[in-house]
């Protein structure tokens, strides 16, 4: 896979160090350490119950880690995410999607994307008072927000459905909308929790293209996925978890050859299913 030219490959965007999460007597995440490099697509794979989603919830502040550190190397310098409250993590540039889609179903597609830009817009409203009176820079800010939303609607091919309620979209479109909504927060790191779940092969294909497009925008990606075709083709680095522990960490090719990964997750027959050729021309 040709290295994209837009970002240095050896600078981490996210450092996870000795992360531990216990729920009562159960240790869901057990001393996991890995780095996600800036500009990379880092995949986290593993069997069900391996602790992948728990790691995501720790990174995005939905859980507080029992021990360990999560450091984001964002545009504003280092930020210890393990000591930051949920909404501030999102504000520092970590966006996420959910395994079971969480849209605002009664709001239109466009409204979903404007809610994502809440903090930018709220800053332009002058504590809401100026905006209620129709004063100030609010109109300008809203125009810009709609423009950003429109851009991502075009990228996700949802522009035709912009005024439809999000709950009325078909499943695949809802998945794309959730990604578009996350991108409207202008993140530096996008965490995708099983974005290909429930998609047909063609939709998975489009999803892989969308993810690569997002990476080309300069946003690093952390990905949980069970679709090995997608993972092996687009990721630069794969972290394998099993029973809360990291059992492998490396390039897709190296991970696929790792015996422990094969035993724990991929299985013998899976190698045939994985596409032999890497991504077609022009990743970025």
């Amino acid at each position, binding site marked *: 896979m040709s290295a994209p030219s837009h970002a240095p490959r050896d600078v981490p965007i996210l450092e996870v160090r000795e992360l531990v999460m216990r729920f009562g007597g159960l240790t869901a995440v057990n001393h996991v350490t890995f780095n996600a490099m800036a500009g990379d697509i880092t995949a986290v794979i593993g069997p069900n119950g391996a602790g992948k989603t728990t790691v995501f919830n720790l990174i*995005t*502040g*939905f859980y507080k880690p029992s021990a360990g550190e999560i450091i984001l190397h964002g545009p504003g310098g280092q930020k210890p995410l393990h000591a930051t409250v*949920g*909404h*501030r*993590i*999102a*504000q520092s540039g970590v*966006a*996420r999607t*959910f395994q079971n889609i*969480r*849209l*605002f*179903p*009664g*709001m*239109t597609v*466009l*409204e979903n994307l*404007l*809610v*994502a*830009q*809440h*903090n930018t*817009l*709220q800053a332009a*409203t002058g504590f*809401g008072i100026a*905006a*209620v009176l*129709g004063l100030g820079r*609010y109109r300008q800010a*809203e125009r810009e927000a*709609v423009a950003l939303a*429109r*851009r991502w609607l*075009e*990228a996700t*091919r949802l*522009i035709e459905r*912009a*005024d*439809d*309620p999000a*709950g*009325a979209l078909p499943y695949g479109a809802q998945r794309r909308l959730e990604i578009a*909504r*996350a991108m409207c*927060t202008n993140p530096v790191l996008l965490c995708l929790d099983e974005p290909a779940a429930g998609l047909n092969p*063609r939709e998975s*294909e*489009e999803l892989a*293209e*969308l993810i690569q*497009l997002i990476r*080309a*925008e300069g946003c690093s990606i952390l990905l949980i996925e069970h679709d090995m075709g997608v993972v092996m083709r687009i990721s630069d680095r794969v972290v394998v978890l099993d029973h809360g522990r990291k059992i492998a960490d490396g390039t897709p090719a190296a991970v696929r050859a790792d015996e422990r990964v094969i035993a724990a997750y991929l299985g013998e027959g899976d190698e045939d299913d994985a596409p032999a050729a890497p991504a077609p021309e022009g990743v970025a």
Partner: protein
Amino acid sequence: MSGASRLPEGPHVGGVPHNDDGVPEPGEMGGIPRGPEAAPPRPPVAHALRDAGISALVALGLFVPLVGLRTDVGPGGGGLILRTRWADVAILVAIVFAGRLAMNLWSAYRPAKKPRTVLRTAQIARIGTFVAPLFLGFAVLMPLLPWTTRYGLDLGVLVLTYVMLGWGLNIVVGLAGLLDLGYVAFYAVGAYTYALLSTTYGLSFWVCLPLAGIFAAFAGVLLGFPVLRLRGDYLAIVTLAFGEIIRVVLLNWVSLTGGPNGISGIPRPSFFGLSFSAGGGPGTFSDFFGLEPSPTHRAVFLYYLILVLALLTNWVTIRLRRQPLGRAWEALREDEIACRALGINVTNTKLTAFAIGAMFGGFAGAFFATRQAFVSPESFTFIESAIILAIVVLGGLGSQLGVAIAALVLIGGFEAFRDLEEYRMLVFGAAMVVIMVWRPRGLVSTRRPSVALGERRAISGDLVGEGHG
């Protein structure tokens, strides 16, 4: 980024594209074969008769002990005697039989229900755009109409007060999806704020009005903090308790609030310093404008005052809905976890909803105090909260027009049924049940999007969340 051009349209899988509309087009492959639709078998008359017979039997079993047997005090006050009323029982059972039979036959033979077409939805939406200005026009002109009586004017003031309270609560329950059963507490805080400030410090209504709003908003934040973590039923219980706490404090803090005696002699509002004294005299409204002194002037003034306050509530709500804050409220109602993942401060957003909703409750309370010239804890019981919540739910969560109509129907209807005397509550309750069965999501269940690239289309209530607290 160059947008869509980067994502080429993938090739269609398979030969001729199959569009999923279920209608096979020429050359289109697959699809489910669609035969002529078989008409659903209609239940015969015998079935209807049998069902009605069973209902009549159940009714008989119920009415024999309930209606058929009656104990009365015997002549001379000695002991009870048993009277039987079999004729009444027979009539009731016959009514049940006939009613059930009619229902069965109607459901069997009524014309097939037409599905609601896009055209019909558009028609309803068009009617909707006319209804609101019509109501507004009527509300503005009502005191000037020649056939408006003093009673009608007072009723209008009452209805508008509840419209305003409904709109205020709509922010909390309808937009932010936080079920609040103690809204009357803020109404009470506003009323007592005005009552105490005006009787103790002699402050005028216009100074006290914003203060009442601020105090009520403060009470809203006070309530908001402990309940931030609670959702759904738990939130409802705590807000209910909060409402009761406020009432009990008002009842027992005798040195400040006068306890159960309340506060009387609250100054009436003035029109830019001109008072509405019935006796006329220098410095009064009637004197200044050279009118015949009349108590109607004050009633008209109060009417317009509450109309302006209610419209202010409406205007602020409509504006806020299009702001990031309003959208965040609605997003919170739809999915709180997603809000947090998008960097929305859920705590602050909930608190602002409580505070702004409470503020309008406080304004309404100050108005209530100045209109009545007397406040006591009796006016702020739980039933008030329940009525305001019923207005919001009946009108449709989040719908401004629906809430206004519901307030009119509920409060106006309550007065209209006054002639029915003891059956009033029965009719009233039955009407509410019927409305909720007929329109489970309220009178106006659709939601209008706050922003659109093209045309704004109403969103079906089925998709809109109700909030989880």
